[in-house]
């Protein structure tokens, strides 16, 4: 510190420290030595910087060296990310393959690890592709089905759900699920009076009170002529045509009287895109499993029991 001081330099009287010779309005700058710890960190940083430049990409745009120097390691964060993604995909590939080969929902369900994977992969795909219409929790909205419940317009088995995902509903796919309910009011197929009457009848199907009994009776006749081809005479609907069951507590377009009138008047035309080609088979399988296990999936045993009840 003060070992090798220069005698020619001016010393501050008060502290005895050499000054730098810089002076501002009579105030002189003392030339105290830098703290040793600070100095050593600086030296270490300089060494580190040199080592870093040798090993890592560091200097941009030198002529003849491409867009930047590569360093000995030729490190590239973009490549690292790509490799990490590839590694992740490879680590998942086994599960996706298992999922594909499992085929049936029972096989997925019986393997807790596979089930966990299918649910995680399905949830992620659902959030990316389905939540826009069906909601983040698959709770649905008016006109967009709730996938948590036990109502399935086109069938609720694992295979049915997979198929619906593939072909979509009223989509451009060749084999798409398709049916159309006429716009009875807008296209003047039924008068306002008749629509009121058939609405009253539909209300009685799910055990509710019509406006007048006479109106409902008149509506019954209209229902047989106009609606029963798809919704069946007893109003229980037909899955082959995606015609909803009108006797249950679930209403895709709302179950209030005014909502039912509106539905009959305008004839709903809900669409879902076909996901074949947009998503790979494995993702569709995972999605189907996820939707199935949201709580509404219908097992084969369930279908059999339902058929027995009908007979």
């Amino acid at each position, binding site marked *: 510190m003060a070992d090798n001081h220069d005698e020619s330099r001016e010393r501050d009287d008060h502290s005895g420290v050499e000054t730098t010779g810089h002076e501002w309005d009579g105030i002189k700058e003392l030339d105290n030595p830098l703290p040793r710890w600070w100095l050593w960190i600086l030296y270490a940083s300089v060494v580190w910087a040199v080592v870093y430049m040798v090993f890592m990409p560091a200097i941009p745009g030198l002529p003849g060296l491409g867009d930047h120097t590569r360093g000995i390691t030729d490190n590239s964060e973009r490549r690292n990310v790509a490799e990490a993604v590839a590694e992740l995909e490879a680590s998942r590939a086994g599960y996706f393959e298992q999922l594909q080969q499992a085929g049936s929902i029972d096989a997925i369900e019986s393997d807790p690890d596979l089930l966990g994977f299918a649910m995680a992969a399905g949830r992620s795909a659902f959030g990316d592709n389905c939540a826009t219409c069906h909601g983040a929790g698959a*709770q649905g909205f008016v006109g967009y089905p709730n996938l948590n419940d036990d109502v399935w317009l086109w069938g609720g088995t694992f295979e049915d759900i997979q198929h619906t995902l593939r072909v979509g509903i009223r989509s451009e796919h060749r084999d798409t699920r398709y049916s159309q309910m006429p716009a009875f009011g807008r296209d003047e197929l039924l008068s306002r009076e008749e629509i009121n009457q058939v609405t009253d009848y539909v209300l009685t199907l799910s055990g509710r009170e019509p406006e007048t009994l006479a109106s409902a009776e008149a509506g019954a006749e209209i229902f047989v002529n106009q609606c029963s081809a798809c919704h069946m005479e007893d109003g229980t609907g037909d899955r082959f045509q995606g015609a909803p069951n009108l006797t249950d507590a*679930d209403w895709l377009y709302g179950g209030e009287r005014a909502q039912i009138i509106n539905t009959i008047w305008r004839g709903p035309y809900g669409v879902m895109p076909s996901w074949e080609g947009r998503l790979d088979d494995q993702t569709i399988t995972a999605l189907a499993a996820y939707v199935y296990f949201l709580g509404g999936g219908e097992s084969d045993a369930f279908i059999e029991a339902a058929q027995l009840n009908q007979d």
Partner: protein
Amino acid sequence: MTPSTSPQAATDQHQSDAVAVNDASTRELYAKRQQIYPKRAKGKFRLIKWVFMAFALAAYYLLPFIRWDRGPDASNQAVLVDFAHQRFYFFFIELWPQELYFVTGLLIIAALALFLATALFGRVWCGYACPQTVWTDLFIAVERFFEGDRNKRMMRDKAPWSFDKAWRKISKHIVWIFIAMATGGAWILYFHDAFDVVHNFFTGQAALTSYIFFAMLTFTTYTLAGTMREQVCTYMCPWPRIQAAMTDREALNVTYRVDRGEPRGPHKKGESWDDRGDCIDCKQCVAVCPMGIDIRNGSQLECIHCALCIDACDDIMDKVGRPRGLITYETDDNVDRFQRGEKPRYRFIRSRTVFYASVLTVICAIMAYGLMTRTTLELNASRDRNPNYVRLSDGSVRNGYTLKVINKSARYVNLDIHVEGDPAIEMRIIGHEGEGLSLPVEPDRTRNFKVFLALPPEAIDGPSESFTFVVSDPETGETATTRSVLLTGAPR
């Protein structure tokens, strides 16, 4: 301030020219640290310290190798902090991360025990048990082995470099580094299976964190115990500042008996001891002090109360034929009493010690109760909130729940589950439909189950229903419960 050495004082054979270089009143703030050359002490307290050091080091190095049988699915290491599997093992205790409050309790107990010990006996922790003291003591012993005692070390340090000086210094540092590496090496044994670590460490297969912590502990041990020593206690450690509030005038501290010692001064053989104190100002207490202070200046922050000055002084008192205990464990109050010619009085039971002891007892009791009543089965339920409820086609309302079942036992359990509440509630467990209402959980595992509860329309009589999930182990009868609600969407 320590009086400077006078030529007359050196005439006596016991005299030392030791200077208390770390004394707060003479130490300069911006000056370079002055090396302390602690002289070797012999006596009762030195022996106690050797024994305790052997015990503490043995515990540190051997504890990870002690085994404890916990069945096939858990580690058999008696003391293990298993970060990878999120478990803490301590003999019969096994803790999960959510039971970290036991560790909090342990820290509280350690703190209170420290307070109580300080209130009774001053800084016994600093003097005997603190790792900084134990390792510094060990490092000084190594230094003494290679470089000789105080005077030799001082002379050699002043002398120019020679082969003799070089090999002694190099050997010392090699042994220090070896001890430091052994210290770091033992530390990592507490975080993975000790036998595996020993094998993997030398074959290069241990975890990276093991090597990093090994390097860190090696570095800190070498620097803190080898080169920094008393500076750690003087500048870095908060405890010397805190202990001033814990000790008081009735605590037993390493104390210079002013009443006996003063007026101090050199004493020649055959001179009278009348009208003078017993302190012959030989400065042996300063020479042996690893902290570089003079205990005769009274209680001070730098003093770690290692009691080596007691041994040094007792030795001198024997030689000059005065009673031992000029420097001794004594209370400040008693020194005052001695000066007034009164008898000493020791009060170990006083409000401070009673308070510390009772709080300590209460915390220990709570910990013991908590450990004894610790369950091996835990249950948590989180209700799905999106959607809050689902209306089914028959009008019934269904809520989804994720049940988290924790099995802390070493057995594979198959738990029965039911709901206490509205009897109309129907339960479904996703993924386990065919197996009845039972939840299989592997040993020492947490499992999540998706459960649906449905309430038929005729049973709905309000916006929500409270109920309790109950799981029970049919083998042991142990149960775990958690309360939850089922939202119906019905108006209030």
